[in-house]
């Protein structure tokens, strides 16, 4: 799951032939996820030093989601699947990025994209991801990748690392992907942690089933072929289908376990408006529809109906404004309707040519949100709609 699961030194994008430097010296053993751990050997020390610098910059990044309550919730879940030591040493940072992704640096900094939090549906799924990332750290997968990269065989795999990382880390280091074997190993470690904590281990597979269905939905709305089984030339991750298959088969005999859907929703829902907004603005109609439907499994709320209205209004194809107006109206009928629903309704109606109704709705919005940053523009649209 981590395109950028680890980071390396600048310029580290290709490799050939065995290296001499860094190959000698002591080999680290045991888990690095213990308090006061000091990296061992040239390679590990190098990675940790580089990452400590990166972490300095990342911690003050403007693109982090700084939400103490949510972060401590993530930590709580991590600590259920991790050893007491790992629970204490791993740092969790939430990155504002609408794509599904998470990553672990070689020195124990766990990065979670906001887009992942939008897609995960239960605490058990979250536990699977956190346990998986922790495994990359505890098993020193990036160190192994660095060594592999310096050998001829690691060449192509390492090239897969090229590409921008989040948050300026691309300037500090390059991200690279783990091998298929490492991903699988981390997946299975994740399952172990889930079982020990009493989580529903089958949820690990659900993540991938969901992601595949979302990719289908995205593709269907765009009238293109789904990317769910597409693997890039340099992509070393197990294909989602393969991943889903082994996660399903390894958990088929497990007891049901705790899914923790309600707990997860309670922790994430304060962030939903931002997460949903970031998603809906990606011009991914099918994927967004799929995600909204997933969030609405226990009922369409005002904010969800509002988001759906926005989605249709943004697309603006034949019939979309009428449908959008319908969703806004449903939202307005709910007690938790956001003020934006009146704005959206007004703008949708203005596009359908229903000027009087558009004016009424925009005026209502401006009454509810007199400080709206676009009030002058809306007032003019409202006036012109009479």
């Amino acid at each position: 799951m981590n395109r950028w699961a680890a980071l390396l030194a600048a310029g580290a994008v290709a490799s050939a032939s065995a290296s001499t430097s860094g190959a000698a010296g002591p080999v680290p053993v045991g888990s690095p996820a213990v308090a006061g751990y000091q990296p061992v050997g040239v390679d590990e020390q190098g990675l940790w030093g580089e990452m400590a610098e990166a972490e300095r910059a990342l911690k003050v990044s403007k693109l982090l989601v700084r939400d103490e309550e949510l972060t401590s919730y993530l930590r709580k879940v991590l600590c259920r699947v991790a050893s007491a030591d790992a629970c204490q040493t791993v740092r969790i940072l939430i990155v504002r990025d609408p794509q599904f992704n998470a990553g672990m640096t070689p020195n124990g900094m766990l990065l979670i994209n906001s887009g992942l939090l939008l897609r995960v549906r239960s605490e058990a799924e979250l536990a699977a991801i956190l346990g998986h990332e922790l495994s990359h750290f505890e098993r020193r997968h990036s160190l192994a990748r660095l060594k592999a990269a310096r050998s001829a065989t690691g060449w192509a795999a390492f090239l897969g690392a090229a590409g921008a990382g989040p948050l300026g880390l691309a300037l500090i280091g390059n991200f690279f992907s783990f091998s298929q074997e490492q991903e699988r190993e981390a997946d299975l470690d994740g399952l172990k942690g889930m079982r020990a904590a009493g989580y529903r281990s089958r949820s690990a597979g659900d993540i991938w089933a969901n992601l595949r269905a979302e990719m289908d939905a995205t593709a269907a709305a765009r009238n293109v072929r789904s990317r769910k089984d597409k693997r890039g030339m340099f992509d070393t991750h197990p294909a989602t289908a393969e991943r889903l298959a082994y996660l399903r088969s390894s958990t088929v005999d497990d007891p049901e376990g705790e899914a923790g859907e309600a707990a997860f929703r309670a922790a994430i829902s304060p962030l939903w408006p931002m997460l949903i907004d970031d998603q809906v603005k990606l011009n991914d109609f099918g994927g967004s529809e799929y995600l909204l439907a997933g969030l609405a499994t226990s009922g369409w709320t005002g904010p969800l109906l509002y988001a759906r209205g926005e989605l249709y209004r943004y697309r603006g194809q034949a019939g979309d404004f009428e449908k959008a107006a319908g969703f806004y109206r449903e939202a307005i009928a709910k007690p938790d309707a956001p003020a934006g629903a009146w704005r959206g309704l007004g703008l949708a109606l203005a596009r359908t040519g229903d000027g009087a109704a558009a004016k009424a709705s925009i005026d209502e919005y401006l009454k509810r949100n007199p400080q709206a940053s676009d009030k002058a523009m809306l007032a003019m649209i409202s006036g012109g709609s009479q």
Partner: protein
Amino acid sequence: MAVPGLAQEKAAVKPGFSMPTGKPVRILVFRPDVKVGSQSAGGVVTPNAEWTANARKNLADALVAAKPGGASEVVFMTDLEGENATLLNEYRSLFKGVATTVLQHRLFKGDRLPTKVTGFEYTLGPGVAKLGELGGGDYGLFVVTNDAYGDSGRKALQIFGLLMAGATGFGGMVSSGVHAGYAGLIDLKTGDLVWLNADLKMGGDVREIDGASKRVSQLLEEFPGGTSGGVHFLPTTK
């Protein structure tokens, strides 16, 4: 990426600028961006913590000893927290943007803006004065170095590359590691960039005390001197 025939100037000083004389001048150094690693045959850079730590210390010591431009004192910015850390981060990003702009669109003739043929009007803006207050300095110095020393495999590949270049016209592109750096000086009252110097092929082994001293002298090439002597600080050996 160098375009043959299109010259690159390495340094520039704001016209008319000289370091003030007759009063003590403090230069505030922002945490230098220092990277040292080894480079394998294929180009993979392995960061090296010990080399980086040594280089960081050696470069800092050499900067203090150098007293650029006749500065009375060279001090380092303390670690900041909270809003101040964010502010410094923002100015660091802006400096990178300004430095990039100067290198790409002012010093590099191939992509120079016609309005930037003469003069040197670049600034971080007067808001940077806050950093001067926080760190206590008249001028702010940003320093970036990036070194990767070729291991034996890399060196073998270099020779191979040279041979191939002769035979095919390709190859010869295997550089001898990475030894790049740049530095820029900011007037912490106005925010103006008064000097910038960059070089992709620097000398001086930053892992060693003497080497770091040589590197610092190269980083500080064409550093503006004081008016009294009009003397450029430090030698210009390459």
